[in-house]
């Protein structure tokens, strides 16, 4: 009798568990809701995979015309202010990558023709690493990087 109840309880929790997994899987397919969100790029564990999915090429030409404003030392990796600005012409998108994060691609910005090539936000950094800004101007990808020392990682654990 006791054993039978135990079975029922087990079955119940297993069922609840699988519902949880199904709901989780549902959340992992946001394509239904948002057509534009690039799941492959944002879930990529390495930069070339993220870049080729996002920008159509896995590397970019280094350009010092891209200015990255970020602290040299971030005491709190949970909030690292980043500004990316460039005087390259014909910029259509800007991406921000934290190369030390588990999923390095943080943000991508599509700019309309009236938008100026400037974006600022605050990002999480797991550890000391390069912040890479990738800029698409015309058909060419350019990038620049700035190292940020992180005293306390910001991805929780």
């Amino acid at each position, binding site marked *: 009798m006791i054993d039978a109840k135990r079975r029922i309880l087990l079955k119940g929790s297993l069922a609840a568990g699988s519902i949880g997994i199904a709901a989780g899987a549902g*959340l992992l397919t946001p394509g239904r809701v948002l057509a534009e969100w690039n799941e492959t790029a944002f879930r990529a564990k390495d930069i070339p995979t993220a870049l080729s999915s996002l920008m159509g090429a896995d590397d970019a030409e280094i350009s010092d015309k891209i200015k990255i404003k970020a602290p040299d030392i971030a005491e709190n990796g949970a*909030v690292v202010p980043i500004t990316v600005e460039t005087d390259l012409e014909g910029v259509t998108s800007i991406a921000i990558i934290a190369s030390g994060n588990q999923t390095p691609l943080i943000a991508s*910005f599509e700019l*309309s023709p009236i*938008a100026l090539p400037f974006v600022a936000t605050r990002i999480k950094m797991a550890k000391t690493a390069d912040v890479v800004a990738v800029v698409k101007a015309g058909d060419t990808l350019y990038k620049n990087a700035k190292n940020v020392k992180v005293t306390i990682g910001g991805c929780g654990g």
Partner: protein
Amino acid sequence: MPDIKIRAKLRGDETTVKCLMSHPMETGLRKDSKTGELVPAHFIQEVVGKYKDQVVMTASWSGGVSKNPYLSFKFKGGAVGDPIEIAWTDNKGESSSASDTIS
């Protein structure tokens, strides 16, 4: 408290838009310190910035953007009193929007 705070300022012939959104921005990788269980992912995936119903900037984000996100962008043109709209959608399909005028 409003979900999104917007400030848009015209300087010369450029408008700078700054905004703050209230959102937990959970990556889905963080563990709850008490239960040890993973906190489910809950983050803004898309932010659209509009000037007079015209899309100026579309941001796509991962959970790597900090909690209560800050975003700033600039565009050419704009006039005092013109409307700016910011709208976000997160991975749960929740959304919010707010508008303000250029000052």
